[in-house]
């Protein structure tokens, strides 16, 4: 009887210990990261702050282009380009005070391109025809768990041989009380530096060699400074270009199938807005370097409307009107029809139409007068229309792509682009999302 009595007491003590383990306040169930409704008041005093890798996105694109209006050769000559672009974005998340959701985005992009016209920066056509670009980015955003409002800061860098760019932004969004509408603002600034690489025939006239030195052209076509038989690359000065953008948006859910967005940007640029290796040929057949004003104001206004037609079809539409103070106006219209073959697999044909009027400083090869103040033969500023069409595929099965749970979605997209200037390009992109 004594043994039975002691056993009961012992069992009761063990149960009591286990009960303590179950009621430990520090191990209560964690709250959801994104509260869809007003979260219950936190009485535990516990705040989860664990940093975790939320999502990884990769995108790669292969782009080819042909054309015959290169700005480097004054509006004539090859525009052939091949570009291989790759991007990686890491999204980290953690919960801050008051259960606000913080996200940190780290991005890295790397491009390799060949450009046939770049070789003609030197008159011999033996210049460097390829290059690379690297562009890291950083973004931090915090979302208020109760209101859904956000605030964030971002920074970017882009570096290539002849162009460096440093940018930063501050952005915030405010949701309406019923969370069906959202007003967003993004203030951006880019501080760029254009390396002053001139066409080889102008180098000595613009930057005379110091006493005792002279410029020579090497077998590879590069112009170098030679002093006493020793040669070196001349130091290349840069010129600044600044861009400031205030971007505004308002999105609204209309009903369970329809939502819209109105967008407007105010963009101002100042500094060196041309490129030093773009040639212009005058009516007298003499060439010079492109000359453009040192300031530009742009006003793009956009409108998006997405409509879930039935259980299988989504219409994605976009229209943009654009104007700037260089005299260019443009219209962009885009329609994409996403057809869901199954809830997790869709095919999306798309068509984009674009037209623009010429900037007042543009004229083709040997049309500008030597008396003009500003002049360019860059067909980016010409009057033209373009079409871009293609198809995209998206697969996002609940069990993951190829049965790999973390492989959340896969998208493949091909597009063919043609301008009335004769420029034609093709681009194929693939993106991968991992969670």
């Amino acid at each position, binding site marked *: 009887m004594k043994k039975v009595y002691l056993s009961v007491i012992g069992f009761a003590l063990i149960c009591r210990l286990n009960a303590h383990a179950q009621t430990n306040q520090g191990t209560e169930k964690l709250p959801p990261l994104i509260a869809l409704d007003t979260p219950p008041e936190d009485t535990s005093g516990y705040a989860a702050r664990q940093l975790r890798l939320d999502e990884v996105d990769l995108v790669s694109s292969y782009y080819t282009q042909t054309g015959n209006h290169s700005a480097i050769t004054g509006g004539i000559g090859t525009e052939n380009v091949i570009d291989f672009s790759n991007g990686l974005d890491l999204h980290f998340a953690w919960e801050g005070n008051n259960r606000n959701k913080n996200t940190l985005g780290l991005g890295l992009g790397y491009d390799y391109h060949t450009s046939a016209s770049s070789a003609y920066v030197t008159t011999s056509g033996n210049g460097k025809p390829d290059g690379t670009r690297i562009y890291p980015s950083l973004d931090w955003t915090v979302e208020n768990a109760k209101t859904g409002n956000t605030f964030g800061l971002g920074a*970017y860098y882009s570096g290539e041989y002849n162009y460096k760019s440093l940018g930063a932004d501050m952005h915030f969004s405010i949701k309406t009380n019923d969370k069906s509408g959202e007003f967003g603002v993004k203030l951006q600034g880019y501080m760029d530096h254009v390396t002053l690489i001139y066409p080889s025939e102008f180098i000595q006239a613009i930057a005379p060699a110091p006493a005792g030195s002279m410029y020579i052209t090497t077998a590879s076509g590069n112009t170098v400074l030679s002093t006493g038989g020793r040669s070196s690359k001349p130091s290349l000065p840069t010129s600044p270009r600044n861009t400031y953008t205030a971007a505004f948006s308002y999105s609204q859910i209309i*009903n369970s199938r329809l939502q819209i967005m109105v967008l407007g940007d105010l*963009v101002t640029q100042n500094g060196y807005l041309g490129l030093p290796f773009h040639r212009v040929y005058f009516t007298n057949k003499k060439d010079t370097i492109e000359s453009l004003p040192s300031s530009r104001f*742009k006003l793009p206004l*956009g409108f998006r409307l997405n409509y879930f037609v039935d259980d299988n079809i989504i219409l994605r539409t976009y229209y943009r009107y654009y104007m700037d103070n260089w005299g260019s106006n443009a219209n962009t219209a885009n329609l994409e029809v996403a057809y869901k073959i199954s809830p997790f697999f869709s095919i999306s044909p798309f068509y984009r139409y674009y037209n623009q009027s010429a900037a007042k400083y543009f004229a083709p090869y040997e049309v500008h007068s030597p008396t003009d103040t500003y002049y360019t033969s860059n067909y980016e500023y010409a009057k033209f229309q*373009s079409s871009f069409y293609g198809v*995209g595929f998206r697969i996002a099965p609940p069990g993951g792509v190829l049965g790999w749970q973390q492989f959340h979605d896969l998208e493949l997209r091909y597009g063919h682009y043609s301008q009335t200037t004769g420029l034609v390009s093709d681009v194929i992109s693939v993106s991968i999302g991992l969670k």
Partner: protein
Amino acid sequence: MINQFVKLACVVLLFSVTSCVHLKEYQKSRINDAEMALGNRYVEKNELNFQSYRESASGANAGKTGGGCGCN
């Protein structure tokens, strides 16, 4: 042209805002579909760069407004 756009946008916005309905979370399955997102998809990132370099127009959520050269 710009006046026409502003008028159209105002009419659409006015019509839309005054006729919109409040949805409960369980009614947002279609709105929250990944392909209903009001913006560019990640896979479009590079093609938008190419377009903004080849054309005068950029911005308003379709192509960046600054940074990078696109010289080639």
